[in-house]
């Protein structure tokens, strides 16, 4: 051993020193860990929440739309929308392959989806397919493919399909009202969506739900005045006729006389609101409220009313329509045949142009405009329906004879079919004007008297003759057995927007109510541009009215009022086993 020899075995102090250094380091580490985990952890947790806590929407259930009897017209059914997270799916080739196989079943084009996924590679949300039936979507969700998720949504379903499409309207792809009452009552129907707090991973996948921030408030149900049975009836009758006549369009309206409620309102052409493909403005227009038509001969009861009110005429007055035509300001207006000397009733029965013109010229425009505006023409109904038209009454600075004559037989101003129906409801209510409602009204509606009751009754009795075969009325095709129909035909040239009348095309109308005494319904049928030999209101629109009126009487169980025919039906009843034969039960 030399002096330079260093003992290899070291005393314990070196190890102790090193250990002390290590323990010091360890102490610093533990202090730092405690600092991070329990002392100053709020800022870290806050930073963490910023990256993970998200608020997701809970879709609210949209209110149902039901008819007056509670039958569903528009319902929201829960559906599942499948979506994927491109950031999660793209790196996972195997998951994509499994998904592609599964997607064949729900008819999703995988090539298109792949391209969309590539284009949205940085995003966290991409719809695979929206609004699948829950059972269909569940098959794919059960595969538990990473990156595939579902979202609960509601799909609007319209059980009546095209039958009530115009009134109800439709919602858009986000369940927001787009047309019709769906749009008009959007605030009422739409609930307020809720929100929930969720934890999401970095790729946007939901890890867990933390809490519900706000419960989704479902929308409220909307009860319409529509009666599905009548709606069906009117739709079928109208569509049949429009198809048979190759007509361009048509509308039919049924109003409840006592309440002013719209029991049915249909238009042709229509569309299926459950299938949004091939929607056209033409098909989606609710013509009964939105379209304006010249009322033509259907205004004659109002002309006669004005004539009676003016005191210049009474039921006994004789108007000479010889020689069956009349010259007004150089224009010739004529009747189909020469009706010679007629009373007011016959002007209505035969729909005499000459007679109406003579009445008009005798009293001037003021009484006629007065009656027309009182029954609601030129004023919006106030149904709240989007796009409702109000029409205008003529307001010439100087009325020529021709202007006055035109007004007397229903040209020179425009009304909606619904306005026409409301105006006829005034006669059905013997002079009371009642507001029209698309919603079910709870309380009895008190009308406003605008025509003297006796006078209204007189006009009604004149209108009864329109359907009389014996008297040769223009609307005999509207007559139904057991019930006395009251109404008026109308045929108007089609007025081109560019100006002038199209003498080839016509609008055919029938407006009326039934039964004559204590009426239940008012109905208006308009058919636009029927093709073929027959085009008059009495030929084209009256048969539709007949079907609607007869069916409505049956459905609404209205007691028959026509004695002669009632007898037939009661004798028939013995041969029929069903005691509740519609239309008879009330009598028994």
């Amino acid at each position: 051993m030399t002096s330079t020899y260093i003992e290899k075995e070291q005393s314990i102090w070196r190890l102790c020193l090193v250990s002390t250094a290590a323990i010091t380091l360890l102490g610093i580490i533990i202090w730092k860990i405690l600092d991070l985990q329990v002392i100053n952890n709020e800022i870290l947790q806050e930073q963490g929440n910023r990256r993970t806590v998200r608020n997701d929407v809970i879709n609210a259930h949209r209110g149902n739309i039901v008819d007056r009897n509670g039958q569903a017209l528009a319902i929201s059914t829960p559906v599942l929308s499948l979506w994927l997270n491109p950031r999660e799916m793209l790196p996972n080739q195997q998951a994509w392959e499994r998904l592609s196989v599964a997607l064949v079943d729900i008819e999703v084009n995988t090539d298109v989806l792949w391209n969309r996924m590539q284009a949205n590679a940085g995003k966290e949300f991409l719809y695979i397919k929206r609004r699948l039936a829950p059972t269909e979507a569940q098959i794919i969700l059960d595969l538990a493919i990473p990156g595939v998720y579902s979202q609960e949504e509601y799909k609007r379903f319209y059980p009546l399909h095209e039958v009530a499409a115009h009134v109800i309207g439709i919602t858009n792809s986000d369940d927001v009202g787009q047309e019709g009452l769906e749009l008009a009552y959007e605030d009422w129907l739409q609930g307020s969506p809720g929100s929930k707090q969720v934890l999401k991973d970095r790729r946007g996948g939901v890890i867990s739900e933390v809490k519900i921030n706000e419960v989704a408030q479902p929308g409220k149900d909307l009860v319409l005045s529509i009666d599905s049975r009548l709606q069906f009836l009117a739709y079928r009758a109208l569509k049949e006729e429009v198809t048979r006549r190759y007509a361009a369009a048509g509308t039919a309206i049924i109003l409840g006389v006592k309440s002013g409620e719209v029991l049915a309102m249909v238009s042709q052409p229509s569309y299926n609101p459950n299938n949004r493909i091939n929607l056209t403005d033409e098909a989606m227009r609710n013509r009964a409220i939105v379209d304006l038509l010249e009322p033509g001969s259907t205004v004659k009861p109002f002309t006669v009313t004005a004539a009676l009110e003016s005191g210049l005429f009474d039921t006994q007055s004789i108007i000479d329509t010889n020689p069956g035509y009349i010259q007004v300001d150089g224009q010739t207006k004529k009747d189909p045949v020469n009706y010679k000397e007629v009373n007011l009733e016959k002007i209505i029965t035969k729909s005499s142009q000459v007679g109406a013109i003579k009445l008009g010229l005798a009293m001037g425009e003021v009484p006629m405009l007065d009656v027309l505006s009182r029954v609601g023409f030129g004023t919006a109904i106030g149904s709240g329906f989007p796009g409702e038209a109000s029409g205008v009454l003529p307001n010439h600075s100087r009325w020529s004879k021709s202007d006055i004559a035109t007004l007397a037989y229903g040209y020179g101003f425009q009304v909606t079919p619904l306005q026409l129906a409301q105006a006829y409801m005034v006669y059905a209510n013997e002079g009371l004007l009642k507001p029209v409602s698309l919603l079910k009204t709870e309380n009895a509606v008190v009308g406003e008297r605008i025509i003297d009751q006796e006078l209204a009754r007189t006009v009604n009795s004149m209108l009864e003759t329109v359907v009389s075969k014996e008297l040769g009325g223009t609307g005999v095709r509207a007559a139904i057995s057991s019930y006395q129909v009251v109404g008026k035909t109308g045929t108007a040239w089609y007025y081109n927007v560019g100006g002038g009348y199209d003498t080839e095309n016509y609008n055919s109308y029938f407006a009326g109510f039934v039964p004559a005494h204590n009426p239940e319904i008012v109905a208006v049928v308009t058919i636009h541009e029927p093709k073929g030999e027959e085009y008059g209101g009495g030929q084209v629109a009256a048969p539709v009215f007949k079907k609607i009126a007869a069916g409505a009487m049956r459905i609404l169980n209205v007691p028959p009022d026509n004695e002669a025919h009632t007898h037939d039906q009661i004798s028939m009843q013995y041969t029929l086993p069903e005691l509740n034969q519609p239309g008879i039960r009330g009598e028994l």
Partner: protein
Amino acid sequence: MQAVKQQLRQEQTYYGDNWLIILTLLLLCFGLIMMTSASVEIGASLYSDPFYHFKKQLVFIFLGLVGAGIILSIPLYWWEKSSYGLYFLALLMLTLVLIPGVGYTAGGGTRWINLGFMTLQVSEPTKICLVFFMAALLSRHHDFICSSIKGFVVPFLLLMPPVVLLLLEPDFGAVVVIMFAVMAMLFLAGARFWHFLLAALLVCGAGAALIFTSGYRMRRVTSYLQALKDPFHEDIVFDSGYQLAQALIGFGRGEWFGMGLGNSIQKMYFLPDGHTDFIIAIVAEELGVIGVLALLGLFVAFIIRALLIARRNERNRKFFSAYAAYGLAFIFLGQVIINVSVNIGLLPNKGLTLPFVSSGGSSLLTCMAMVALLIKIDIENWSGDQRKPTETV
């Protein structure tokens, strides 16, 4: 009495330090559970199998046990004898990995060689090679190294080639751990104190020089300094500081008792290295302070047992074994301290695994081999059948 005890010792079969074995098994179990929990999401997403990493880790544990068996059957004398062989093996591996086509690049470093059944991170076995090489050097040339400045410089000169090769990969983390262990070995072997201080100063100076000469390292350091002040500063949080910020969030969420095993949110793709280098953040998030301290406690106990084995060898004047055991213990200690420090933002990110816990075959096999070596050292010390190494030069 003493003689009887000695007699008994030689008759009984000794299987190595019980505590070390138990602690190793505990660490392996803890690691396996946490590694599995941290990797299920990544596994499910990348390999469509949540237990992909679990299965892989199980296979490596099995391979590790086989490797340990082989190591236990090799007498320590062989390691001492082939110390230069080990040194050149390390140089060979470190050179091979740099050859294009052989080395495999990932995550900003060329650190792996594909062996077919696994990719080997060469810095891992290099640690063992260099520790044993240094132990042999120190035990053979103890007086020369510990008495003169010339001698003291020799180990550093010999370490230069492998360190340079490691820096070329680059694998700065392995360099730091190896230097840490070698310095500790020199100090415990009795290097002169002022030599030692000088060397420490020089090593730090060299480190600083490396940092300032490379823009890449410089950016890492500025980002680290920024992160020390505000880990969520927008300059770094979406870039180099991203993983650290996410790791810190994991710690913050854990509080005392954690969010519960399996309930980590950070492992949901927020912390991409949550099952490897940043696993302690997931442990902190799921098991809280309690879990982290328990894990650190296991490591501390494990390292203390390793140091005691080394000390026992030193007392028995088995210096090669003693220095090797010190070296292995300090590799573990360095790796744990650096890994945890990186996770909590005390040190810049180095890319170091947490022994036994992090997912990764090379790291696990190396750690198990190191434990086997410690046990072998202990067994030979106990039974005294080690052939006498040359004590003097």
